[in-house]
């Protein structure tokens, strides 16, 4: 087997020689038929010679022996030979055995009956014999087709654990079904695998057959191209040439190929899913390890600094107090950096699942405020989140992360004496939460970038921050299928808003 043999030259010559090759093949057929007819005539002549010259027999015996010869010819040859032989035998029978002998005339009327009975019997016998022969041949062909299909199905089923791919399917078809050319087009991957001699326009025809889901016959090169369907949907196409397969066998072959391709694609999907799951697990384990490794030393530092700073009245000298405060604040900053980086990696890596439940907007805001309590102590906060707002269906923990990042931002980017306001209202089937500061605002050209990872505004590079907070907030809102947006104008502060889906009526905790 030679896969992908592009026989362009032979193709050209085939096309040029087309009329000649057509006539030469019919010439061969005609001469074979001529020989066979001659042979059957020769047999009739031989029988006549033996019966007339060598052994002397009566007309009845001669008629029966002619019939035997005709049956022999019908068994071995076709309808034409046996019919020609029947007519020749009838003429010989009449000429040599029916009186008056030596003429083609018949004296007695009963001999006319005998002659026509002979002709009718020999023609019917030839036809029956030929039909029986054809049936036998068909049965043999069907058996051979079934055997081939069986070995193909066995071969496809027994391929290694990863399942047969298109290339293996083509190889197996070539091996078991003995087609000179096999070409398989897989629509999903767009691949074409071939074995044998492939004409250049075959690829286009394969695609056309798959797309239009129609059967294409190319009589000139004896190729048949059929679409492969699975559940009515064309998943590819198969071209075979020179085959003797019946339509039913071809249909079964296509079904086998469809099942093989589907099995391969299912197997691939399973493998991909397994790889993805393992890499997700690895990522998750790695993130946990990093979180633990970073936070363990931070824990002992934080325990020490907070204890020293909590002492009332402090036994520390003023500059010691200042130095410990620096260590304490830096610890917080490093800790936040680690937390943000892990949050972002988890959210982006898809290693989290939404834990959706029904919550009141006010309890979400209160929860976030409680988490930020120590940072909000000296900041005026104006809250307008009515208790009677309808409950929303969200992952409370993640929404609180969004609120804390927005609060953190507002704290950083507005002067300490300026209040921060949190408001909520209902719009359509959403609760809109708005968080506004009275800072410098965000220049228009930067507004589209603030949700990008690691983006820091031009004027804020000196401020503490990781540049991940808004990016995390956006990813969390995206995971909920909701929006987060910014309205800001210079010197009037910034307002971040996001929407929360109202829980369907009747859902409780």
């Amino acid at each position, binding site marked *: 087997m030679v896969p992908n043999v592009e026989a362009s030259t032979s193709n050209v010559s085939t096309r040029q020689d087309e009329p000649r090759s057509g006539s030469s093949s019919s010439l061969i057929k005609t001469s074979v038929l001529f020989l066979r007819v001659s042979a059957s005539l020769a047999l009739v002549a031989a029988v006549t010679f033996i019966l007339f010259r060598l052994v002397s027999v009566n007309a009845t015996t001669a008629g029966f022996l002619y019939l035997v010869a005709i049956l022999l010819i019908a068994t071995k040859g076709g309808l034409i030979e046996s019919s020609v032989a029947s007519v020749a035998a009838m003429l010989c029978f009449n000429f040599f055995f029916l009186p008056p002998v030596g003429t083609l005339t018949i004296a007695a009327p009963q001999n006319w009956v005998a002659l026509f009975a002979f002709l009718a019997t020999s023609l019917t016998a030839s036809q029956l014999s030929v039909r029986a022969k054809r049936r036998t041949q068909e049965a043999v062909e069907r058996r051979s087709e079934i055997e081939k299909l069986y070995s193909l199905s066995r071969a496809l089923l027994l391929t290694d654990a990863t399942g047969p791919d298109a290339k293996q399917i083509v190889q197996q078809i070539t091996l078991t079904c003995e087609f000179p050319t096999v070409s398989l087009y897989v629509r999903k991957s767009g691949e074409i695998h071939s074995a044998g001699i492939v004409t250049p326009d075959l690829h286009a025809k394969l695609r056309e057959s798959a797309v239009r889901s129609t059967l294409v016959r190319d009589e000139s090169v004896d190729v048949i191209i059929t679409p492969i369907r699975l559940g009515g949907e064309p998943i590819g196409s198969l071209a075979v040439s020179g085959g003797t397969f019946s339509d039913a066998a071809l249909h079964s072959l296509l079904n086998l190929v469809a099942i093989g391709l589907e099995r391969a694609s299912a197997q691939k999907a399973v493998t991909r899913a397994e790889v993805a799951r393992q890499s997700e697990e690895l990522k998750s384990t790695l993130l946990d390890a990093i979180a633990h490794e970073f*936070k363990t030393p931070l824990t002992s530092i934080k325990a020490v600094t907070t204890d020293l700073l909590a002492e009332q009245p402090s036994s520390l000298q003023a500059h010691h107090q200042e130095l410990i405060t620096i260590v304490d604040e830096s610890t917080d900053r490093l800790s936040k950096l680690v937390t943000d980086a892990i949050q972002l990696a988890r959210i982006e890596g898809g290693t989290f699942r939404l834990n959706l439940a029904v919550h009141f907007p006010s309890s979400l805001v*209160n929860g976030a405020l409680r988490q930020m309590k120590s940072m909000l102590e000296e900041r005026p906060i104006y809250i307008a989140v009515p208790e009677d707002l309808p409950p929303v269906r969200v992952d*409370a923990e993640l929404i609180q992360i969004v609120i804390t990042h927005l609060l953190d931002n507002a704290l950083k980017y507005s002067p300490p004496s300026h209040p921060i306001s949190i408001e909520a209202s209902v719009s359509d089937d959403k609760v809109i939460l708005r968080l506004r500061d009275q800072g410098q605002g965000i220049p228009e050209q930067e507004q589209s970038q603030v949700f990008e990872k690691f983006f820091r505004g031009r004027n804020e590079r000196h401020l503490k921050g990781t540049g991940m907070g808004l990016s995390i907030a956006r990813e969390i809102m995206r995971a909920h299928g909701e929006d987060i947006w910014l309205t800001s104008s210079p010197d009037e502060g910034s307002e971040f808003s996001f929407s929360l889906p109202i829980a369907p009526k009747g859902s409780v905790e």
Partner: protein
Amino acid sequence: MSGGRILAIDDDPQIRRALRATLTAHGYQVNDSRSGEEGLEEVRNATYDVVLLDMNMPGMGGMETCRLIRSGSDVVIIMLTVDNTERHKVDTLDAGADDYITKPFSMPELLARIRAALRRMPQLPSQSDLHSLTAQGVNIDLSSREVTVNGSTSRLTAREFDLLSYFLSRPNRTIAHRELLQAVWGPDYGDELEYLRVFVNRLRKKIEPDSSKPVFLVTDAWAGYRFHLPQ
């Protein structure tokens, strides 16, 4: 100030050092263990008021250690954990912990939690105010902190007992989440709904004939919990 005996179980020597130094300075008697196995042995051999247990340790992890300590002791367990997701917190409480604190934590916060854990409820009702429960095959013996349901007896931990006492002193009345948290855990608490969810479930497992269909400790959606005392 003498607070009580604390066992710190953590595989990181620096954390053990920091905890010992600061907690001792605040008047507690502190011992430490390097692993879950060692800590478990220590809890069996000596009496402690509070166990500070690290979640992430090689060998027997914190969760398993917590389960094993709880199976044999009522000691207060506070978990030290890096993971602050709600699922993780609930798992921790389900394993029998009384409280948890996320690393890195501030020392005043840890001290507040230890104080809260050790504090017996000031508003704890006196025995005479309590409606003891003997109904539907359930018997709660408040003096021994034992509950008998259909013949099988289980013991309540200190926190479970406090929570049940609070319910029994206010039967047939919806008690808000916040009120329960502040009364039983202390004034610093109020939003830790997962504590209530887990502890109410634990109580249900001990006092309800069928904990999936509670007849005594019922949920009033969005409002709180109510102890239904059959008249």
